[in-house]
């Protein structure tokens, strides 16, 4: 991470780094609308404090002065925590999410919060209650979602850390759409405390950067056990940045036929297959594998995630925080109207489906069935991981699509998650890195799946690929980091 090294060497102050981040946000945000909130005053104050500590010869942390953004479903002491929803529009969190706290303790400085589909429910960032975000490669197109704001900034700005969250692909799919490098760590690797809950058995926090090596550095900082999240695993945190730079010779990669489904765009398949050849050239062993239940993953995901969402979102009752309807009479009416007024259409759809599949008479037929299928997906991977160390495939069957193209048909939008949801159902680490561009100059994402708690293998493969290729170094037309010029 160049910015970190420059601050360390004293070539740049933390304040200069933050001012540069703010300048870049000023350049790109009017065109991309990637950030929901920017904190110039708070960030400059925090940076000045870091500079004073550095001047006094103190250790200000491994990421001293590095600016960061978080998706707006992370609780932060800065600004509001909206989750992209009207119902939380004025919610000011009284605490920082653990991942945010860890970044701050490492010396990083919060500069902005990024746009998302409401509560993380969507694959295009068009479901934000506030505004849509645009793709820096083509502003008529979506950046993917739900971490669309973070992915758009990861490639259009430089010298910042970006955190996103992934419940069914929300780090990896926008990374693919924007040409960013995004890691969904193994479930339990990063504490979810302070992440606005969508589906608790699937949600995971991770970095979205312009390179896999930067993702490794960020993971090193945010990973680890947390007493505030009992699902965070108490396992040693490797030095991911060192691990990521190890040789990949001899690693065995599986290519599942099921991940090149009917309907996949020809250019996506072509670029991904070419990337797999690069791994072979670098000394990895590539073989065909089968994950036979892949086609059932998305229907199972739709049911499981909706069920958990309906339970998690019951907390928005207009009593403790968030919006309360002013036109209600009585308590139950107040609940119903506050929620009816505060949630957007897609969130309501998922709450209703989730309530339905958990309701008496339908639980076995839908929810329990979906959980059984979840087990089959997991078993598929367990079998394959006896023969290979990682699985490589496309991140999404399609590149970024035009704004408005899928938003009116929820099922059409769900379809783009088909290759990412298995990682969440099976609690695996998964990463997307750019592996080429279509004839329309839109990025194509290569996805790497690893074994549980072997995030370092995923990062190692991604770093090795990026050491051989330069797709991740290309600047999009909307860009703030190349001398501050737009145009590419």
């Amino acid at each position: 991470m160049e910015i970190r090294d420059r601050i360390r060497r004293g070539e740049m102050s933390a304040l200069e780094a933050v001012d540069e981040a703010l300048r870049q946000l000023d350049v790109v945000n009017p065109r991309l609308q990637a950030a929901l909130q920017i904190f110039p005053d708070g960030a400059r104050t925090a940076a000045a404090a870091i500079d004073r500590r550095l001047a006094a010869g103190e250790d200000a942390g491994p990421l001293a002065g590095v600016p960061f953004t978080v998706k707006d479903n992370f609780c932060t002491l800065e600004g509001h925590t909206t989750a992209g929803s009207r119902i939380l529009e004025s919610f000011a969190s009284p605490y920082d999410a653990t991942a945010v706290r860890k970044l701050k303790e490492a010396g990083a400085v919060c500069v902005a919060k990024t746009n998302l589909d409401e509560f993380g429910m969507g694959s295009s960032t068009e479901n934000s209650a506030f505004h849509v975000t645009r793709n820096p490669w083509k502003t008529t197109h979506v950046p993917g979602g739900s971490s669309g704001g973070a992915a758009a900034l990861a490639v259009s700005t430089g010298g910042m850390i970006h955190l996103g969250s992934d419940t069914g692909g929300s780090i990896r799919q926008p990374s693919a759409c924007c040409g960013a490098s995004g890691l969904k760590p193994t479930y339990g690797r990063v504490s979810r405390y302070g992440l606005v809950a969508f589906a608790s058995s699937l949600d995971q926090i991770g970095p979205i950067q312009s390179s896999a090596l930067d993702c490794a550095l960020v993971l090193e900082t945010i990973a680890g056990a947390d007493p505030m999240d009992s699902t965070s695993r108490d396992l040693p945190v490797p030095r991911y940045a060192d691990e990521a730079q190890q040789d990949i010779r001899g690693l065995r990669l599986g290519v599942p036929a099921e991940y090149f489904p009917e309907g996949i765009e020809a250019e996506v398949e072509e670029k991904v297959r070419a990337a797999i050849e690069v791994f072979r050239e670098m000394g990895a062993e590539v073989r065909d594998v089968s994950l036979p239940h892949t086609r059932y993953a998305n229907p199972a995901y739709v049911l499981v995630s909706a069920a958990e969402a309906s339970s998690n979102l019951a907390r928005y009752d207009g009593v403790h925080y968030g919006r309360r309807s002013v036109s209600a009479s009585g308590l139950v009416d107040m609940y119903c109207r506050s929620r009816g007024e505060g949630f957007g259409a897609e969130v309501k759809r998922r709450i209703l489906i989730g309530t339905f599949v958990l309701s008496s008479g339908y639980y076995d037929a839908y929810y329990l069935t979906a959980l059984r299928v979840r087990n089959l997906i997991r078993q598929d991977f367990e079998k394959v991981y006896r023969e290979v160390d990682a699985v490589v495939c496309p991140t999404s069957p399609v590149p970024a699509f035009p704004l408005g193209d899928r938003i009116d048909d929820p099922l059409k939008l769900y379809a783009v998650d088909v290759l990412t949801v298995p990682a969440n159902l099976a609690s695996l680490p998964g990463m997307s890195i750019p592996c080429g561009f279509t004839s329309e100059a839109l990025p194509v994402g290569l996805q790497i799946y690893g074994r549980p708690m072997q995030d370092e293998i995923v990062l190692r493969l991604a770093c090795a690929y990026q050491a051989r290729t330069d797709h991740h170094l290309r600047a999009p037309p909307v860009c703030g980091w190349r001398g501050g010029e737009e145009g590419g």
Partner: protein
Amino acid sequence: MDVTDELVAKIARLSRLALGEEESAEMKEHFRKVLGFVSELESLDLEGVAPSLFALDASNVQREDEPAPSLPAGAALANAPAAHPPFFLVPRIVGDAGEPEMSP
């Protein structure tokens, strides 16, 4: 299965979601589509397959039962739409101001 207006209304009630007429019609259509989408799962033989909630074998994790500072009442109430410190304020629930609770 048959998706009726009554089913959507019942689920909306259980979800504590007030829906307009147009919204209810849209949700009914959405139910049909989703149930069609997931019907593919019916073709699987799931006999003997256990349901899996988490795919990692983490058992229950408990922390020491030691007192620790928690959120001060003032901070907890700061985001309340209506409060009478140290209490949250809700509409009247006794007498005839609230509708009776429903059973699922």
